[in-house]
């Protein structure tokens, strides 16, 4: 049983470059920031290290940080450019009973994160969902398709803050 600070120290020692910092400002739990391409290595370490044994991924959530600049599109709607999309990983150890939150941030223009599919299979659908909702590309995910939206949905990624409903989907009017 370790608290997040100890885990952070441990990780910092192991991967000095990949660990970008720890956000203790969050009121409930600290968040460890990680470099997106390294997430898989760190996940493997977290899972396999006998002191940590993070054997289950509780939830993987994509978030649109909406920290870019808002620009007006030609048809007058707001479009966010720049800034980041983030992925939060909430980990938990069934046996050692400790929890931790990881966060990776990836540029909005080209959001790419290493997949943790092979580390925790939970992440399979969660990554697909994050892809579906935010367009975050999970590298090396074997089956990165849309999951909740229709497979041929081409009007963008619904949970991005600047998403707007399309007029028509396959000839059907979308806003009823």
């Amino acid at each position: 049983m370790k608290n997040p600070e100890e885990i952070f120290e441990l990780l910092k020692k192991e991967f000095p470059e990949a660990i970008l910092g720890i956000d203790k400002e969050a009121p409930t739990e600290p968040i460890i920031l990680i470099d997106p391409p390294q997430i898989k290595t760190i996940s493997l370490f977290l899972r396999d290290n006998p002191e940590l044994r993070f054997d289950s991924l509780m939830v993987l959530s994509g978030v649109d940080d909406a920290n870019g600049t808002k620009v007006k599109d030609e048809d007058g709607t707001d479009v966010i450019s720049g800034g980041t999309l983030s992925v939060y990983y909430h980990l938990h150890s069934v046996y050692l009973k400790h929890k931790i939150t990881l966060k990776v941030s990836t540029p909005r223009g080209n959001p790419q994160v290493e997949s943790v599919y092979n580390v925790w299979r939970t992440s399979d659908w969660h990554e697909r969902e994050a892809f579906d909702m935010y367009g975050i590309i999970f590298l090396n995910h074997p089956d990165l398709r849309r999951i909740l939206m229709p497979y041929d949905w081409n009007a963008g990624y619904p949970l991005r803050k600047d998403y707007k409903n399309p007029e028509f989907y396959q000839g059907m009017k979308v806003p009823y």
Partner: protein
Amino acid sequence: MALKTETMILNMGPQHPSTHGVLRLELELDGELIVNVKPHIGYLHRCFEKHAEAMSYPQVIPYTDRMDYLASMYNNFGYVIAVEKLLGIQVPERVEYIRVIMGELQRIASHLVAIGTNGLDIGAFTPFLYLFRDREKILSLFEMTCGARLLYNYMWVGGLSHDIHPDFVRLTKEFINYFRPTITELNNLLTFNKIFIERTANIGVLPLDTAINYGVTGPSLRGSGLAFDIRKEDTYSIYDRFDFEIPVGQGLVGTVGDSWDRYYVRILEMEQSLRIIEQAIDQIPDGDVKAAIPKRIKPPKGTVYTRVENPRGELGYFIISDGNLNPFRVKVRAPSFVNLEVFGELCKGHLVADVIAILGSIDIVLGEVDR
């Protein structure tokens, strides 16, 4: 000489009597043997998470009702705990007790449906209706308390929508006394029926390490033999005050982690829930059912992840607040969504008839899978 054979693709669902909603399973069959299963979800997708971003914090609660519509009370519970943690407020004792009682009643009601439909999938129609009859009694208790039978919107941030009805305690005790014998009857009628055992024992065996790796939680994980219950593990509300056990699958009639174990864990869990209710019902303190919270709920900036033990597993709410009236991001870790992932793995090598037996035993609610 080997014959040239082909596999057959069978689409089960989205409209099929036993896919528990609008789940579509693409089965690849070799005769009746399953070669591969591909679940397709999203037919019930309403994008709860997008809705939540446009709502104020209390307005989200009716939407949480509609995710796992068989355990609405618990969805409210998880959400309000998350928001309260974000706000940093403590709710009155009375509220905690009532929440726990409601949550456990909801757990029983939800398990009744799970068990009943599992039996129904396997062909036993009668136990299903007996269980629905009992569930009606719980729903009547809820209706008496908050006026709704299915989508309660009962637990509010910092309190409850209504105090309990004066008759509630008496009627709940009556229900407990009534309900105990019906569990025995159910066991005789269905659980230990030879045909039912044949259909579920050794079917869809979920080994523990696979279960953990896939993030399976709730009765499905406990069926695999691990006493993991968030009520004890990561205790919330006042669950640490009650004495109850975590039933685990023991492989009584087959292998540990088979469909029967998952089913039986639910039955044992109902008994534990009764125990919790019995302990809580006599201790409800007097007091107010609303904490002193501002009229406009405006949590400080920050993130919170809370999890509760929903009847189907770990229900987590990940809320990011940017200090406004509306949440910036609400992510739901829906237990059914996660539990369904492992489904394809469980079905391989079984027959078509087993698919529904397994699906029934992992007990999904499509409203929650698709959100």
